[in-house]
């Protein structure tokens, strides 16, 4: 136990002192701070414009109604809160001039209304058609159709009641057939799952790196005569895990502080259902991080101990990388349909559970029974992986030269000391 603590604390100190560790963390913090300030930075640049034109975030559309077909009624569009500021003119402007205005950034897009043979032609000009699907957006056609209809109706001289009966008075509501209610924005949750996956994956990968470094620097023999292989594997796993966890907590803390301090009001709550972020979720996420990390770290300890040259690390780690990617995508894609059986399976299957269960909890669809089963399955997996890894590690670490093959590994496990 004393040795375990010595190995773990040495690993922690060694990692924290590394320049690469310090610099990469500073870079991550900087990216987070800058990332959350993007809206503020954009606002700063647009401040001058916005003081002249109202809000900087509104796009600007030029409408050229040369023949005054809409009889001035288009001005009402500016009162309709469509997210666009309309500049309406009855003057004659050549199409090239209009295009120039768009290219120069004076306006974002333009609508040119014309009439020939009693038919109204509308041309919608955008900067680039690539995103348009070769169609004029419905928003534009609806807007103009409804403005034109309103103009014509107003000419009919209808009474208020008649007018009111023409205007539909619908209320729209979205409902689902399944009983379980999914809370939160799935896309944001999938993004968080990706973050958790990378956090677990990279922390676990460090274990493999650390072991191979000890083998390549030939310090292994001194180390195994100083303490048991089990202590080395577990101490290292704990040490790197503690640093990884602290790192993740620091990153999340910086991100949360930035989110509250820097993001425009309402943006955070629109992305995440904040009522779902509870201390229980926090604790469960930490638990799943630890369990997921331990599973993958011990697998990496196994592969790391089978190589003695740094150039072999990549290929030896391949199988673990594949398992982790399968685990992650199983969690990630089934999360698009969180109430499916496959997602329940993903939240219990040990190699995908760490990337899945915390988010099922966040969406409010995980039952306590499922959580308990998934934690038990993970713990059992860790015990099995640990015993196999330690056994193979003990035998493989003194093997220098060529990589240990799968056959050798099976022999080591069978006859291992």
């Amino acid at each position, binding site marked *: 136990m004393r040795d375990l603590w*010595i190995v773990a604390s040495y690993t922690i100190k060694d990692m924290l002192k590394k320049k690469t560790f310090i610099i990469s963390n500073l870079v991550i913090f900087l990216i987070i701070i800058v990332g959350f300030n993007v809206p503020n930075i954009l606002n700063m640049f647009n401040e001058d414009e916005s003081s002249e034109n109202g809000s900087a975030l509104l796009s600007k559309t030029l409408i050229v109604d040369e023949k005054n077909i809409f009889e001035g009624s288009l001005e009402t569009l500016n009162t309709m809160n469509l997210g666009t500021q309309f500049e309406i003119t009855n003057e004659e402007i050549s199409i090239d001039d209009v295009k120039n205005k768009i290219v120069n950034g004076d306006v974002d897009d333009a609508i040119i209304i014309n009439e020939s043979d009693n038919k109204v032609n509308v041309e919608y000009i955008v900067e680039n058609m690539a995103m348009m699907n070769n169609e004029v957006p419905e928003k534009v056609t609806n807007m103009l159709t409804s403005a034109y209809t309103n103009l014509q109706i107003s000419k009919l001289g209808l009474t208020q009641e008649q007018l009111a009966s023409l205007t539909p008075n619908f209320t729209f509501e979205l409902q689902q057939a399944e009983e379980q209610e999914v809370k939160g924005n799935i896309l944001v949750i999938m993004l968080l799952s990706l973050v958790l996956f990378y956090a677990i994956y990279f922390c676990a990968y460090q274990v493999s790196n650390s072991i191979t470094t000890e083998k390549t*620097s030939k310090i292994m023999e*001194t180390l195994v005569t*100083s303490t048991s292989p089990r202590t080395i594997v577990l101490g290292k796993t704990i040490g790197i895990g503690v640093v990884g966890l602290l790192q993740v907590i620091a990153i999340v803390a910086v991100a949360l502080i930035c989110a509250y301090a820097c993001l425009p009001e309402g943006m955070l709550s629109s992305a995440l259902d904040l009522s779902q972020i509870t201390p229980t979720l926090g604790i469960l996420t930490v638990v799943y991080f630890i369990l997921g990390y331990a599973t993958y770290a011990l697998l990496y300890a196994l592969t790391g101990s089978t190589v003695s040259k740094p150039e072999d690390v990549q290929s030896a780690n391949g199988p673990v990388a594949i398992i982790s990617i399968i685990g992650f995508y199983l969690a990630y894609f089934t999360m698009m349909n969180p109430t499916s059986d496959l997602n329940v399976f993903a939240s219990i299957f040990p190699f995908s559970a760490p990337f899945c269960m915390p988010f099922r909890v966040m969406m409010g669809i995980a039952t306590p029974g499922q959580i308990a089963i998934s934690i038990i399955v993970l713990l059992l997996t860790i015990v099995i992986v640990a015993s196999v890894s330690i056994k193979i590690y003990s035998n493989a670490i*003194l093997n*220098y030269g060529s990589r240990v093959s799968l056959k050798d590994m099976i022999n080591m496990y069978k006859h291992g000391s």
Partner: protein
Amino acid sequence: MGLKVEHVNKTYGTKKVVNDISFEIDKPSVYGLLGTNGAGKTTTIRMILGILKKDSGEISWNGKEVKRKNVNFGYLPEERGVYPKTKIYDQMMYFAELKGMKKEKAIESLKYWANRLEVEQYINMTPEKLSKGNQQKIQFITAIIHDPELIVLDEPFSGLDPVNTELLKNVIIELIRNGKYIIMSSHQMHSIEEFCSDVLILNKGETVLKGNLKEIKEQYNANRVSLSTIENVDKYIKELGLEIYNSKDNDYIINISGEEDGYKLINKLIENKVKVEKFEIMKPSLNDIFIEKVGEAK
């Protein structure tokens, strides 16, 4: 008291790497483990230290099975290794603590040995900045910092310059004086001859020679004469029918088949009034015995 290795065997797959090896160190001294590359020395050492499982046989220290917790041992592996990017002080303290030392005691011991091996100016540096020889001295300190009873040195002199070799030799003498049991494996026969009272020669896992070095040598007849003269004496040597093994500037090494040949040679030189600067009848060196034994086995 001491280390006892009895009938130890080890097989890798179908290859027998150590076959029925036995020896004993019963007093503070250096025991020499010799052998060609791949003879089974490192495997034997690893089994003694308990980092490799033996197939059969017994290894005991003071009557107890050799295990990390039963024996306080120090080990300088043949594969030299240090953490290249970790401060020397930090890694030494790490190993000292793993071997059960208290921090204050470890610092004291580190200071003593760093001073003794003339590396104290480096202990706050990282090993990647040091020469190979200095890295080796650092690793040597790692092996003995915790004052072990049993010390295993696998090729301790390889890679050291003459000055540092001398320094290390003095340290080893100091360790023996302090009652340490040392097993030393080396290819450098003269260093083994200098330190070891007992030796074991391994070839392909088999013991080809074992015992007290002096007693072993006594079994051999004189086989060479070392001679230095003022003038060329080739003709006298040839007249006696002796073979010159090597000669340079009137310094000769001459093969003989017994002490008698030596006496005949010196008498002949005196008769002819040759001025002799040096004359020595030599017994085979450990190097000769090693080559003969390993050659025989082949």
